[in-house]
């Protein structure tokens, strides 16, 4: 791969909220015990899943759109350095200021510095995955700067001192009555008679947010797309709160991952069809805001963009994993994922949950980052994510690739090989010869013995114990197919 601006010779791995603190199976075990979470999630993902299928089926050229989206992203990754330079030149020419950040710390410092220069201690925020990723809110709080989330779901999560569990619907794990309780507890000046009616809840949030919109001098946003040929940034949202933040304050600071670039305005057309349908199941996006630098007498006077690497160059350097950077954060993969549906987003430990998180987080942090190495195994490889992904990221293949990177990275580093290592080695020996497998199958009657009179095996030792936790194994047959064939068919000739 070629190098791009500011890129060091060795990959810089991502820091911030990308690391799982505990292994996926452990975290999943805990989350699975939360019946409320599972009920909320099951309901929400099924609703949005059906809606997506419906609106996608309306487009006769959906597959071609996916191909186009995938091809555009592939070309972006192939010439990222050049596009970034083009973007920088255009953005700067229109009065914007660009800052480069290698990792979460650098990005946080840049943003805090810019806010400090304005003399403000309060900022309003547009929902942004990049700032979640770098832990900006927490960092600003340490610096004495209060960041107010203005996206409704993000606001709910923030008020509850919780973490988002879904990239599009951060509060997907909460239901209406939980939201009402949070508002009553945490929102200043809220009506004590508040009910859990969606309209009443929205009105309460609206009153709360309006005060913030009208007083804030600084806004922080993410960006969904950046157009290289014009130096334009785009934010796509559904509530209009984003538009308030992007137009009212004097200073606008955007934090964006370098992979969000698109070559031209025209390319946006493809993604404006793919994104809303894949994410919210809507035909068209309600609020799309685009801005190009500073405009005389209109909008923010100071426009900054922090271009974030934070492990993206490391992901780009992985030939098989590179396409994970095509992700447009639509969340379709998590909404169809059977694993996500049952564990929720917190089990993944990173800002990016679900199938894309299971590959993106370890790619960005490096597989060596201890608990992140458990993420690529958090999938049954059913392939539903690949089918749903609007930019055709082959998530199952990348999962398998990362598993092999993990296994290889641990080869020879362990004093004692794991049961899995030993088992796989033995199985490789047995299964690489018809003769050897045939000989082993002569032992099948032993398995029948172990199964006992009710013809099932109910307890296995070691790593296989996971299987017998909820499943039996049938007694093996008296004779393998191979033996039957040798006797019945070959013998006959």
């Amino acid at each position, binding site marked *: 791969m070629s190098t791009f601006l500011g890129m060091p010779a060795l990959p810089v791995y991502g820091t911030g909220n990308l690391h799982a603190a505990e292994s*996926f*199976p452990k975290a*999943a*075990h805990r989350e*699975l015990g939360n019946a409320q979470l599972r009920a909320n999630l099951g309901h929400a993902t099924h609703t949005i899943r059906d809606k997506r299928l419906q609106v996608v089926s309306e487009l006769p050229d959906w597959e071609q759109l996916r191909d186009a989206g995938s091809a555009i992203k592939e070309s972006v990754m192939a010439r990222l350095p050049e596009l970034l330079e083009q973007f920088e030149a255009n953005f700067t020419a229109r009065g914007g200021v660009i800052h480069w950040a290698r990792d979460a710390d650098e990005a946080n410092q840049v943003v805090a510095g810019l806010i400090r220069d304005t003399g403000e201690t309060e900022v309003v925020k547009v929902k942004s995955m990049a700032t979640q990723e770098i832990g900006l809110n927490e960092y600003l709080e340490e610096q004495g700067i209060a960041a107010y989330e203005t996206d409704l779901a993000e606001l709910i999560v923030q008020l509850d001192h919780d973490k988002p569990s879904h990239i599009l619907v951060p509060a997907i794990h909460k239901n209406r009555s939980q939201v009402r309780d949070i508002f009553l507890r945490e929102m200043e000046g809220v009506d004590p008679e508040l009910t859990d009616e969606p309209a009443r809840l929205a009105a309460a949030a609206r009153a709360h947010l309006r005060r913030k919109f009208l007083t804030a001098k600084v806004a922080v946003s993410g960006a969904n797309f950046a157009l290289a040929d014009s130096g334009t940034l785009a934010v796509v949202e559904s509530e209009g709160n984003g538009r308030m933040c992007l137009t009212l304050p004097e200073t606008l600071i955007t934090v964006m991952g370098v992979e969000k670039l698109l070559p031209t305005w025209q390319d946006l057309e493809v993604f404006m069809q793919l994104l809303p349908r894949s994410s919210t199941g809507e035909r068209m996006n309600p609020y799309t805001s685009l801005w190009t630098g500073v405009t005389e007498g209109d909008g923010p006077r100071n426009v900054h963009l922090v271009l974030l690497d934070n492990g993206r160059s490391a992901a780009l350097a992985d030939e098989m994993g590179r396409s994970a950077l095509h992700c447009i954060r639509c969340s379709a993969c998590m909404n169809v994922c*059977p*694993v996500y549906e*049952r*564990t929720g987003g917190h089990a993944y430990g990173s800002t990016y949950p679900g199938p894309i998180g299971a590959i993106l987080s370890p790619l960005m942090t490096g597989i060596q980052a201890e608990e992140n190495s458990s993420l690529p*195994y*958090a*999938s*049954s*490889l*059913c*392939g*539903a994510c*690949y089918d749903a992904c609007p930019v055709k990221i082959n998530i199952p293949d990348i999962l*398998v690739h990362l*598993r*092999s990177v*993990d*296994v*290889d990275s641990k080869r020879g580093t362990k004093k004692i090989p794991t049961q*899995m290592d030993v088992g*796989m*080695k033995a*199985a*490789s*020996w*047995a*299964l*690489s*010869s*018809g003769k*050897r*497998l*045939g000989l082993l199958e002569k032992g*099948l009657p032993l398995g029948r013995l172990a199964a006992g009179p009710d*013809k*099932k095996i109910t307890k296995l030792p070691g*790593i*296989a*114990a*996971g*299987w017998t*936790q*909820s*499943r*039996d*194994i*049938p007694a093996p*047959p008296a004779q*393998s*197919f*191979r033996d*039957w*064939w*040798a006797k019945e*068919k070959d013998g006959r000739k």
Partner: protein
Amino acid sequence: MRIALFATCIVDAMYPATAQATVKILERLGHQVVFPSGQACCGQMHVNSGYLKEAVPVVANHVAAFDTDDYDAAVAPSGSCVASVKHQHPMVARSCGDAALEARATAVGSKTYELSELLVDVLGVTDAGAQLGSYFPHRVTYHPSCHGMRLLKLGDRQSRLLTTVQGIDLAELPEADQCCGFGGTFSMKNADVSSAMLADKTANIAVTGASLCTGGDASCLMHIGGGLSRQGSTVKTLHLAEILASTMAEPASVTGEVRVTTGKATR
């Protein structure tokens, strides 16, 4: 046609009746079946668990067993193993830099079919009852496995064949396209999540009132059957090949008691 049977390791060792049924079906259609004796396994378990190096000899063995002109097409009664042969074998060969193996693996893959694919696309079976004499008077529900459905794009080939079995009462499985949670070593590494997925699958099966759940992958059926057995359910699992091979004169044998339901012809 001369058709090479790839029995797959699970079927060979645990479900020989499925392979025998496959042979029966093909012979009944007038084809000759050969069994390359060097075969063992597709290596999917190794690949999917990240043990690519250990997968190499397994893949090489499969390619050696099937890389002959001795047959016109190879068939396996398993979507996931066929997907592995087609998609994973060339990738494994590439990973160890063996271009010759990659080319041979690709050639073997292009001649390998999943059972329903071979029956419908190559052998022109459109009516199992009429062409194979398939007769199975039970209420059955069908689970389409992920690899067949998504990797091989089998579409409705399997269920179309099932609907043409005489006497069958095919009950639609709610959320049929949801993974059963097997996923090979996933069922052990993430046993809790896998069990939760299985519980939903078996609950959906119970809703159908079927006495049997069928499908095209022995491994998924072993998983689902293992869960049903643990839950004390009377519902059994049976491979699609065995239902297709079942005739009035020679009915499929199902271990354990099967609630015989009055079958209705579905045509």
